[in-house]
């Protein structure tokens, strides 16, 4: 592995991640051999649990950095933000890959997933069909968007071993043609990425609109799709900032504060629109009545809103704090946490089935698998960053 960074690939932290990943894969093996019942606390009252709430719903939201940074840098032509596009793109590509894997682990008959493409079977009435289709198409778009980085990595450096050396020129030529073609059509894929993201981020919210008697009134609203989209905008940028600081620290690189701070200015505006839609809807529905009943749901709602929206909103609006890496990182992390908590609230904590004997509490193996998958994702991110020119190099500007 060619190391373009000052730190080694394997660190104590990486070892921990490897162990967690192995544990997750062990749970996966048990699930495949003995079924969902062997590793989950799912039942007829709670058909969806941790894997749908976190691996899928939260995963999709947190991967929103891919299309939001692309929109700011390429559609609005704020080119200085391009240094953030590639890391966010990598997060999105890996994130969506794991959303797909997460879905397949949860599906009882994962081997029938191709039924989405069998003529006559797709049901356009189903929000889940829409989500699945868009995620699938968007994943393809993300992989295409990542290809130029692969071309850049290997162009002029193709060096196949042994007898394959004869093919070096050919591969080089193919890469050059690929790069030129991609350069011509990349705009389309960037726009397509925005369209597909808007479509499925919102449809993910439509999913629960079909269960008005089960989703707690603090979250149930017919504008849930709009709220999911608005929160995805905010969390996309927050996630880009969060991971940029995290990657810089982990790889001992200088912080990109000169682009992070200005980008962070946009977040309070997006949060205002999102929170505004939440408050207006709350007043409209009178659901504030449920806020002081002391239920776990009321506490979850308050934490989601105060930690996830109000506090970061205040920090990011304060010029002085926004420019301090520690504060900026905390605020971005809070937005990420807030939106993650929102998805968990909508899919797990706020889900109140009619005949449940008690609340759903995830089984240990469910948690182990989720943690394992996230660990693999982080490890792959690190590996990609080591192999490919993802992070901005000093004195060199990437052009996608």
């Amino acid at each position: 592995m060619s190391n373009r960074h000052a730190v080694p690939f394997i660190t104590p932290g990486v070892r921990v991640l490897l162990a967690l990943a192995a544990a997750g894969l062990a749970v996966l093996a048990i699930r495949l051999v003995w079924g969902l019942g062997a590793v989950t606390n799912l039942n007829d009252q709670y058909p969806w649990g941790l894997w749908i709430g976190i691996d899928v719903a939260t995963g999709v939201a947190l991967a929103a950095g891919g299309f939001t940074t692309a929109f700011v840098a390429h559609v609005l032509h704020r080119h200085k933000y391009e240094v953030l596009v590639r890391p966010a793109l990598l997060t999105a590509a890996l994130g969506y890959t794991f959303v797909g894997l997460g879905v397949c682990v949860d599906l009882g008959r994962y081997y029938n997933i191709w039924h989405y493409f069998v003529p006559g079977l797709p049901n356009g009435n189903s929000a889940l069909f829409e989500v699945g289709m868009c995620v699938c198409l968007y994943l393809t778009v993300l992989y295409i968007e990542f290809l130029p980085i692969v071309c850049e990595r290997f162009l002029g450096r193709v060096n196949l071993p042994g007898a394959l050396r004869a093919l070096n020129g050919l591969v080089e030529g193919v890469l050059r043609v690929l790069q030129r073609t991609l350069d011509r059509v990349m705009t389309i894929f960037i726009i397509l990425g925005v369209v597909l993201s808007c479509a499925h981020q919102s449809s993910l919210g439509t999913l629960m609109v079909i269960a008005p008697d089960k989703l707690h009134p603090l979250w149930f609203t017919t504008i849930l799709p709009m709220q999911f989209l608005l929160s995805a905008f905010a969390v996309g940028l927050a996630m880009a900032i969060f991971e940029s600081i995290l990657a810089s620290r982990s790889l001992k690189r200088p912080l990109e504060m000169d682009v992070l701070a200005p980008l962070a200015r946009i977040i309070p505006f997006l949060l205002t629109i999102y929170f505004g839609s939440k408050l207006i809807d709350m007043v409209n529905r009178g659901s504030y009545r449920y806020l002081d009943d002391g239920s776990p749901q009321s506490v979850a709602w308050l934490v989601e809103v105060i930690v996830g929206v109000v506090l970061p909103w205040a920090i990011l609006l304060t010029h002085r704090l926004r420019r301090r890496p520690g504060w900026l990182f905390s605020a971005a992390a809070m937005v990420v946490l807030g939106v993650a908590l929102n998805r968990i609230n909508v899919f797990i904590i706020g889900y109140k089935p009619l005949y449940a004997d008690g609340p759903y509490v995830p089984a240990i193996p469910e948690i182990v698998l989720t943690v394992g998958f996230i660990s693999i994702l982080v490890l792959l991110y690190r590996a990609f960053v080591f192999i490919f020119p993802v992070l901005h190099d000093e004195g060199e500007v990437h052009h996608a």
Partner: protein
Amino acid sequence: MVTRRDFFKITGTAAGTAAVALAGVETAQARPALDPDRMGVLCDFTFCIGCRRCEYACAGENGLPQGALESYDDKSLLEKTRRPDRQTFTVINRYPALAGQSGSLDVKVNCLHCEHPACVSACPVSALVKNARGPVTYDASRCIGCRYCMVACPFQIPAYEYNEPLTPRVMKCTLCSDRILAEGGIPACVEICPAETMVYGTRDALLKVAHDRIRNHPGRYVDHVYGEYEAGGTSWLYLCDRSFQEVDLPAVANQSPAEVTEAIQHGIFRGFTGPLMVFILTSVILKSAGKGPGQAREDKHE
């Protein structure tokens, strides 16, 4: 670099191709009309004697663990509130007599076979289908096992075989579709019932019978045919001596929950208007934001 003309040529072609490709999916969505003579079951809880023979017949009909008929004489099970599950598509629950009256009330629970089923609307791959003649049926060979039907069902009916590693099924009453869709057949539970608790017939006729009973026997029933309007109407219709919520049937809206989600889905995706508008809007912003003095417009603040 891509010229302006190229840009619109490429985006235009891409948008057009996407619209045509996806329009095929969109057009396939109109809900099939229901047969005016579609069938249903009127279930009068005040007739039920709690013999549980319907449970016995149902298990036999659906190849579920059945046991001997005598085992159903065990009435202790009636005392605890049960739900249909993966091995029992219908259950009888007993509720104590109303104050000042004698005799408890026995309540039969099973899939209500909605007129506009949320489970069918939710299923991404059409594994659940509403038959024009009434039954909501399930085709395991189509199912991907997402369990969104279970999330969607307003009556919390579908159960799942969580312990099947390879071929788990969604389990629920079929309205004996194999029997009734063949001419002359009637559901197994209706057939075996010794108390005439259930009447099988066209839904329209059953509604008349139900309302006649309420009118002709003042004091015997609450003036409410459960299922006439609930969740957009159901094939099963219930008569009861007390509020249906007292026997654990949920107070659901008169509109199918699928009505709302389908309106949202179709509002956004009909003819792909929504995605196309985002596509065009993004393209226009991309093109116009790039113009003006100094191609790369950077914000000068901070």
